[in-house]
């Protein structure tokens, strides 16, 4: 069972639809007790980083932290991935989970923002999420802030400089792009997440 966390940010239908298509059981919940029973957790997110403050107030943040501590696989998508860092310039007063070092930053003024559309990834050598894929797949992005490159970066992308498009460490996974909107490649990635046994 995949537990998709609803914290009132954006539209979760498309994420659930992708897991349905893959034949995976999943539920959408905003209840910390359900998170405590989750086998795998997906934190989607579109919109503003400040919306993640709801996670703290609702008790979901603590439930997620405890689940991660138990080794439950966790996938953050878009703002969900950014939340795994210390924070974001988009909402400096809203703390992230600080599972990864660094802060998300705005794109430079030299490029249009948001970064919307299909861009190409450069995959690193070892990633369970990208297992079985060619080294430079196209995926769909839509975001105005980006995560810094760091040692756990498994895919980078070029737009006004290089940024971290995917991160991975132990049971923690994050993608800046939208696998649920990235065609066959995205479905393959979600399928790899479903198949994890960490």
């Amino acid at each position: 069972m995949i537990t998709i966390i609803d914290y009132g940010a954006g539209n979760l239908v498309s994420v659930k639809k992708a897991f349905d298509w893959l034949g995976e059981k999943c539920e959408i919940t905003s209840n910390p007790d359900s998170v405590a029973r989750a086998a795998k957790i997906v934190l989607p997110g579109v919109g503003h980083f400040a919306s993640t403050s709801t996670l703290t107030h609702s008790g979901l943040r603590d439930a997620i932290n405890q689940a991660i501590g138990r080794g439950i696989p966790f996938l953050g998508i878009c703002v969900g991935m950014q939340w795994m860092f210390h924070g974001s310039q988009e909402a400096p007063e809203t703390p992230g989970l600080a599972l990864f070092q660094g802060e998300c930053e705005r794109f430079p003024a030299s490029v249009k923002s948001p970064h919307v559309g299909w861009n190409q990834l450069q995959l690193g050598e070892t990633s369970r999420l990208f297992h079985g894929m060619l080294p430079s797949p196209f995926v769909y992005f839509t975001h105005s802030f980006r995560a810094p490159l760091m040692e756990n970066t498994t895919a980078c992308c070029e737009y006004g400089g290089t940024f971290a498009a995917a991160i991975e460490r132990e049971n923690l996974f994050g993608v800046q792009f939208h696998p649920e909107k990235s065609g066959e490649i995205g479905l393959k990635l979600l399928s790899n997440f479903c198949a994890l046994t960490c």
Partner: protein
Amino acid sequence: MLTKRIIACLDVDNGRVVKGVRFENLRDAGDPAELAKAHSESGADEIVLLDISAAHERRTTLLDTVHRTAKQLFIPFTVGGGIRTLEEASAVFSAGADKISINSAALADPTVITRIAERFGSQAVVVAIDAKRCNGMRWEAFTHGGRNISGRDALEWAQESESRGAGEILLTSMDRDGTASGFDCKLTRMIADAVRIPVIASGGAGGAQHFVDVFREGHADAALAASIFHYGFNQIADLKQEIGSQGIPVRWPC
């Protein structure tokens, strides 16, 4: 490198895709869900479903059509046509759309852009502008499928839309729409250079060179076409290979 998007548009009347010139002489072109899936498999980067049904037919069929189409579609999916309020937009999102496109309702009450963007994010709000050349280098925005003049300058309206929270502009040249004589590169460039959000060019697509021109000279971020993608000819795969070979970055092979 960020690629230029090729967007397939489905004009839908009462649950069926239709094809015609300037919404006249409509012919049945198939089932929206099947065509959207076929376009996606052929390499479309995105699907836009534009509901052109009469108002009284709309409610009963649109949400069902969106739901059926979204179910087997895993690329971005935009739905437009007659969406007036946050509540109507919410229902379309719940049915499976990723973005909504609004035109007449936004011109009538620009605050609806902000309301939808605050709830669903700017990336989910596309403001569609139907622009018609008035004199010289001025274009005016039209409403209700091009029937009514709004009194708003297209360029100013694009900039206001951005400031109110629109995530993209879908810019249709009414002068070129249905003519297959090429996109209006002057109009597209003027708007694309004046806003920071992506601009989707629409109206006039007839062949691969038109896409190359609107990306290179029109500075478009994406280009949309409807009729040339129906009935099986001019497959998107062929189009992408052709414009890719001319140096335009495209998602190919997908």
